[in-house]
């Protein structure tokens, strides 16, 4: 089995996670009499995954660098409220420029709060656990103060598209075009990798292994778009049209692509992993470790604000109670996706699979009429199981 993974270059951990996800889907589908795997439910699932997924990407970076952020749910609420409040109460509601400006304010606030937390952690050596646990309390309070506890609605129609509501998707044609572009990118990237490796006479994976990987990735892309396109809704003219990929899913894909690139191809990403693997070595290598930590929390703040944007846009309102327990889902997604709590190991695609798994369980249990109290218990157990798997896996890998 190990030899097979080595030969094909497939990551054993990621592969097993995908297989677990597929098994969970099959199980939920059987339990719900097929409802779980209908295009309509999968479309909803894709949107539900976005909030957790966007923040899980940042959490992977933080956990890789041996940090944690427990405040993301509260920060989501604070920034989301700030966006809703400025959009409705401060700027003229009808103006087209109001909502982008409110969005910019929300993201700037997220970055500023992240910088505040990062400063305490990096430059004042207060453990991240403490700083962000305090933040968990503070930003929830701040979210209340923004509008004195009122719920703010309705939001600008254009802004609502960002949440993937009634018409917040891009339709069939654009979705297929994107799928084609994504497949082309997958093929091009693989080919390019083989070419540079050949130029430097580096070790090459067998052609069939690279080919299999490209085929599987393209099949996943095409399959995803096909499902999204087979879910139809009524458009403004009461015509039945295919939905296609939802806007928040596009945002998630953008975040995933950007952060995967950063982790693999930039100095910053390399430093995050080096710091997580051995903080002392990172320091001795002249890496600006304090600044790297500061930037990580700022990044997490920006992503929490993006998640706040998706949440408020989807609900078409801002309320100070949004994002409760999000921190647990986000950390669970990162850990289930193979991010090791001992630092230095983690992957962005992995955390998306983790987020999908958590949301699938949540979604499936809703379909099965499981009460929210019982759902909380199960998600908690899944988190313990995931960390336990991490411990066992690491012990095996160390041998």
């Amino acid at each position, binding site marked *: 089995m190990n030899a097979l993974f080595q030969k094909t270059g497939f990551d054993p951990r990621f592969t097993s996670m995908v297989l677990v996800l597929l098994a969970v889907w099959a199980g939920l589908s059987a339990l719900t009499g097929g409802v779980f795997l209908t295009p309509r439910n999968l479309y909803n699932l894709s949107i539900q995954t976005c909030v957790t997924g966007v923040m899980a990407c940042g959490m992977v970076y933080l956990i890789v660098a041996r940090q944690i952020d427990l405040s993301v749910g509260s920060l989501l609420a604070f920034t989301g409220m700030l966006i809703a409040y400025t959009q409705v109460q401060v700027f003229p509601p009808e103006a087209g420029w109001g909502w982008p400006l409110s969005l910019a304010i929300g993201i700037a606030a997220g970055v500023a709060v992240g910088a505040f937390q990062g400063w305490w952690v990096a430059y004042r050596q207060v453990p991240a656990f403490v700083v962000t646990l305090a933040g968990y309390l503070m930003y929830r309070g701040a979210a209340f103060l923004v509008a004195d506890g009122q719920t703010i609605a309705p939001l600008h129609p254009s802004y609502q598209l960002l949440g993937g509501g009634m018409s917040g998707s891009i339709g069939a044609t654009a979705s297929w075009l994107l799928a084609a572009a994504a497949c082309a990118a997958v093929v091009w990237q693989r080919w390019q990798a083989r070419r540079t490796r050949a130029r430097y006479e*580096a070790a090459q994976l067998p052609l069939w292994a690279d080919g299999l990987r490209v085929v599987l990735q393209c099949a996943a892309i095409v399959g995803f778009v096909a499902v999204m396109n087979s879910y139809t809704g009524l458009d403004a003219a009461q015509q039945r049209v295919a939905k296609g990929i939802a806007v928040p899913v596009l945002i998630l894909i953008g975040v995933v692509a950007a952060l995967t690139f950063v982790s693999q191809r930039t100095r910053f990403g390399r430093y995050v992993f080096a710091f997580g693997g*051995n903080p002392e*070595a*990172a320091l001795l290598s*002249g890496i600006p470790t304090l600044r790297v930590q500061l930037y990580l929390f700022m990044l997490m703040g920006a992503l929490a604000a993006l998640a706040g944007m998706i949440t408020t846009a989807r609900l078409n309102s801002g309320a100070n109670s949004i994002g409760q327990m999000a921190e647990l889902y986000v950390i669970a997604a990162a850990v289930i996706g193979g991010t090791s709590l001992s630092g230095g190991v983690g992957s962005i695609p992995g955390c998306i699979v983790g987020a999908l798994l958590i949301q699938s369980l949540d979604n499936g249990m809703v379909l099965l009429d499981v009460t929210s109290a019982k759902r909380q218990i199960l998600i908690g157990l899944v988190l313990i199981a995931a960390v336990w798997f991490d411990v066992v896996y690491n012990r095996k890998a160390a041998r």
Partner: protein
Amino acid sequence: MSAQPNANTPLVDVRGVSKHFGGVMAVDGVDCTLHAGEVVGLLGHNGAGKSTLIKMLSGVYPPDSGEIRVHGQPVRFESPRDARAAGIETIHQTLALADNLDAAANLFLGRELMTRFNTLDIPRMEHEARKVIGRLNPNFTQLHKPVRAMSGGQRQTVAIARALYFNARILIMDEPCAALGPAETRMVIETIQRLKAEGIGIFLISHDMPDVFEVCDRVTVMKNGRVIGTERVADVTPDDVLEMIILGRAPEHRPHAAPALATGRR
């Protein structure tokens, strides 16, 4: 003592350097020198101040007082980056490798090769790593594994390769053979001799007397943060050196033996 370097200017000239942590004088008024093509052994018990001294030389922390000159120029290192820029490479006892990254990533850590789009040039780094590591240890080809999965000798090879790749003139090696088997120790000793022939100056910290006497030109012995003496290896026996380390006094049986610097200069 002109600032203009000439053939006799030491590569490194440490003058009266001190460092204390709280009330503990870790390094107390230390003088020592290192010339091109020379290996100087830094000896002493654990806690004698060797590691603190080399951490100041490699920019981990600044001295409280005293002066470090490199190529005759006074330097002040604010970070390891500054020391590297001055041509000082350090192989720390812990090797300072990120266990989760592979050989090439560790070799270029903090000094990555970039493409023209300012992204990591991973194939080129891998190619260069393969070249420099191949020169040190031709049997070492599994560069893709994370360092965690490597043997002690392979890890040491990565650490040495990192120091060599950037054309250091000054090399500090903190117990490079401590965790190695006989064959790997041989590889390190031969590497030291080759580097010496290339004119690189090396500070070597070691507890192994045969190794010290095989490669070192001079030894500087420290105890309790002070330099006990600096001797040419040709002038002393291993017993003399052990006496310096253990009893903290310079050998008395030779009339010309003098404490500290006097015998150290050529």
